[in-house]
Structure formats: C-alpha cells, structure tokens
C-alpha cells in the first residue's frame, strides 16, 4: 500500500511538472492518469526505490548525481582527446569485472554509470560478472581493472541501497 501511494505521488508530480499549470482541469486529468499509470506499472516500479524514503539514503542519492556528472564530463574530454588525436590512441577489448553488489537496482545503476564514465561500456551482465568494453586497457590484472572501473561507484551505491 505504501508503495502504491509513493508511486502515485511520483507520477502525479511528474504530470504536474510536465503540464506546469494548476488549472483544475489539468489537475483532475493528472489524477486520473497517475492512477492509471500506477495500476499499469505496479510490477515495474522497483521495490528498492522505497529505501530512498530514508533521508540519509536520499541525501547520498542526491550527492551521487553531481558525482556522476563529474565523471561524464571527464568522459567527454576523454572521447574528444581520442577522436581528435591523429594517431587514434585506442587499445580496446572486453574485460570481465566482478561486483560485490547484490541489489538489482544498484547493479542496474552501476552498469549505466559505467557506460557513462571515461572509456568504458557495459556489454553484458551475467550473475556477478560485468563484461565491459574498455577503449584503452591499461592493466591486464583483474583486481586492478576492478579498482579502476567500478570501485569509484560501488562504495557509494552500497551505502545507498544496501
């Protein structure tokens, strides 16, 4: 029940932001749409999101966004450097990295974060293993690879979701 109410409120807020008007006609339609969306997506809304109702976790989740944006900007300068360099300095390959995260949503966010950060792209997730395409392999040692690719996000996601 608590989950359904949260879901309804989230959808309703998105509707209000999209229409950006408090006209009673818009609000009434919005209530109906939010209710319909809540019924249709009752299995799609991840349970783990409910953990964000805890203020400490929510605060960390909010800090996570600028932290990620910082790496996205780095990633773009990395791409610019590789693309504009006449020698095309790439050294690609698919590496295997193990994660310690157990929570499904945390794993999804980790996979997406990896894709947005410098030089890495998640190709496949199989159990605890991430198969990551890395544009410039700097180390053949799996431990060092894990340290470079996922440690910077893993500790934070663990605090948020576990």
């Amino acid at each position: 029940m608590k989950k359904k109410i949260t879901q309804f409120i989230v959808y309703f807020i998105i509707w209000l932001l999209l229409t950006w008007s408090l006209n009673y006609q818009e609000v009434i339609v919005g209530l109906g749409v939010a209710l319909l969306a809540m019924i249709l997506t009752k299995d799609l809304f991840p349970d783990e999101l409910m953990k964000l109702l805890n203020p400490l976790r929510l605060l960390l989740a909010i800090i996570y966004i600028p932290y990620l944006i910082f790496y996205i900007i780095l990633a773009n300068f990395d791409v610019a450097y590789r693309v504009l360099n006449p020698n095309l300095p790439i050294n690609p390959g698919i590496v295997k990295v193990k994660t310690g995260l157990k929570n499904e949503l945390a794993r999804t966010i980790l996979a997406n974060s990896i894709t947005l950060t410098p030089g890495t792209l998640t190709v496949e997730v199989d159990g605890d293993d991430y198969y990551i395409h890395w544009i410039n392999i700097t180390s053949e040692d799996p431990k060092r690879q894990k340290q470079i690719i996922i440690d910077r996000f893993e500790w934070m996601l663990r605090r948020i979701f576990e």
Partner: protein
Amino acid sequence: MSSNVAIGFIIVGVTFDLLGCLGLIRLPDIYNRLQAATKSVTLGTCMILIGVFLEFGFTSGGIKALLCLFFILLTSPTAAHALSRGSHISGFKLWKGSLMDKLEEKRRMDEN
C-alpha cells in the same frame, strides 16, 4: 545576460555532439563507436537542454527540458547497452587490434 549563458551552453553542447559524430566516423568497430556516441551525445544533448532551460526559465517549456534531461540520462546508457549486447550476440567481431574478449571466451566455454 542569462540569454548569453544559454547560448554558450547550447554552443558547447553542439560541439560535444559534433565530436560524438566525428567519433562515429573515425573509430574502427561498433563497440568503440557506441562509446563515443553515447558519452558525447548524452552530455551534448544535456547541455543543449540546460541552455533551453536557462533561456525559458521556470515555464512550461523550461521544466520540460529539465525532465527530458533526466530521462536522457537514464535511457541513453541503457540503449547503448542493448545495442552492444545485441551486436555481440549476433556475432559482430571486435576490431582486429583489440587486446582481449572475455565475453567471447565465456560464450565458447558455455557452448562446449
């Protein structure tokens, strides 16, 4: 003033988008190309949307730009993941200069 800042954001965003397109042409295989395309286009498009938000402010259009920004941040890496995974499953090989392909090794092992 805010209009100038908005235009600045849009110009930088378009530049990043352009670099992403350049990456699509210059890099050798689908996986490398996806890397360039995903990263540059995500940030480039986000910056264009921030520019739109600064120009329109807290109006219907500006808020929609912010919402789009959030959804692009969520969906763009997912799309890249789906494309690269699909390519690998349908047998696209890595570029000949690649160092290793652990995923290919794992597939071979699963088949035997």
